[in-house]
């Protein structure tokens, strides 16, 4: 991050201008999936800058221009201040304060989640569906699901069985309905913990996919202890509804989302069911795409 080219929004409103005047020590503009994002920080603390950069979305590249579509600002609190208000760190998106906390980890996690959402919502030419994805025999297995549905656990088990890692968070679809890699580190939750621990895919013995793949199977599953995976097939219409319920820009870009989803369901089998342990489900999933 540098202080010479501080990022700024395309159009600055008056309240944002007030925030601009607070003084910013460093900043960075980057592009991810066609979205231009800027981050600025009130203090040039090298350690903090590194932590913020580490939470940038998958596939980000520094941008030359400081003009951005979305601007995030981090004001660090003063640990030595006697006033509790001054000890708090603050995170802003544009002129809106998103978070105020003495916990810097909270700021970093909130920024990471906001950046992911920002890119997933506004990416150009791509539709982000909340899903785990692996590649198997030149086709993708897409595992849609919201938080705590066990996507990452299933993805990790599929990787251990030899599948190629594409994503544990988003199926990134193009207009043909092909899925592109979003191979960020897997975020695996340990027993009793809400926050996941990050594992690079290589640490789990995974090869990460580099090329887009057509979708061969969409599997909607919900974990239940002791259950056996006996899924039922969904019709194309039911499959589109299920995918749409996990599509990030479903409301903001419904036409583009439906075009991509229609391509997916036209070429893939979609199944839904209750599953038991991930390892017991993996064989059945992979058998669907055997050559």
């Amino acid at each position, binding site marked *: 991050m540098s202080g010479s080219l501080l990022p700024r929004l395309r159009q600055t409103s008056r309240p944002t201008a007030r925030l601009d005047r607070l003084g910013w020590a460093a900043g960075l503009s980057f592009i991810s999936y066609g979205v231009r994002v800027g981050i600025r920080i009130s203090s040039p603390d090298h350690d903090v800058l590194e932590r913020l950069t580490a939470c940038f979305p998958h596939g980000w590249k520094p941008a030359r221009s400081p003009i951005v579509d979305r601007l995030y600002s981090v004001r660090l609190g003063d640990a030595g201040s006697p006033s509790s208000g001054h000890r708090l760190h603050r995170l802003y998106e544009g002129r809106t304060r998103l978070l105020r906390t003495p916990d810097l980890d909270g700021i970093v996690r909130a920024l990471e989640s*906001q950046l992911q*959402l920002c890119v997933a919502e506004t990416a150009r030419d791509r539709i982000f569906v909340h899903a785990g994805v692996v590649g198997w025999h030149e086709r993708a297995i897409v595992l849609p699901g919201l938080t705590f549905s066990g996507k990452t656990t299933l993805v990790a088990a599929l990787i251990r069985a030899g599948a190629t890692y594409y994503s544990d968070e988003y199926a990134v679809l193009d207009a043909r309905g092909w899925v592109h890699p979003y191979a960020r580190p897997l975020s695996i939750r340990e027993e009793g913990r809400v*926050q996941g621990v990050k594992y690079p895919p290589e640490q789990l013995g995974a090869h990460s996919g580099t090329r887009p793949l057509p979708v061969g199977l969409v599997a909607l599953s919900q974990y239940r202890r002791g259950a056996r995976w006996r899924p039922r097939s969904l019709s194309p219409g039911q499959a589109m509804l299920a995918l749409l*319920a996990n599509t990030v820009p479903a409301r903001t870009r*419904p036409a583009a989302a439906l075009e991509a989803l229609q391509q997916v369901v036209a070429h893939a089998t979609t199944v839904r069911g209750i599953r038991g342990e991930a390892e017991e489900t993996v064989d059945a999933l992979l058998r669907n795409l055997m050559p």
Partner: protein
Amino acid sequence: MATRDPRAPQAREAELLVHDLTDETLVYDLTRHQAHSLNRTATLVWRRCDGRTTVAEMAALLERELGTPADEDVVWAVLRRLGRAHLLEERITLPADGIRCSRRELMRKLGLVGGLMLVTSAIAPPPALALTCVTSCSSPNSCEPCLGNQPTCTGKNVCCGGNCVSCTSSNCTGLPCKCN
């Protein structure tokens, strides 16, 4: 709006995205952010809701297209469901002589023409809802983890993607969060 023959319903066209699938139709309602999957029977009826075709004519058409007995009771049941999904210009009010059979008999008839799931609906999620919860929130805004997407927060904040954010944040508009 001109008064139409209630027995010749009119399909809604405005603010809808329509995708034809094999034997089904996917309709997205841009006003309500709802998607509907119409099965083959509902698709055939909806496509004939042109303000001219009567219920009796639709029943005859269904019978011809599906190759199985279909009468006006079936058509009225489909129209009622289409109306509930806001896919007709005017919500259907069943005439006194509308569905003349028992509920059990109607279900049997619907089973014969392709199933009871005439129209399946789902609400398109706001962007922040399709986001993995990354953490529970820390002080000063005590926020419970977003387990099962039923977050609760205290103060003027909502839990969004596992984080406490301002209730006014545009990112959380429409989330099923509650502010205490």
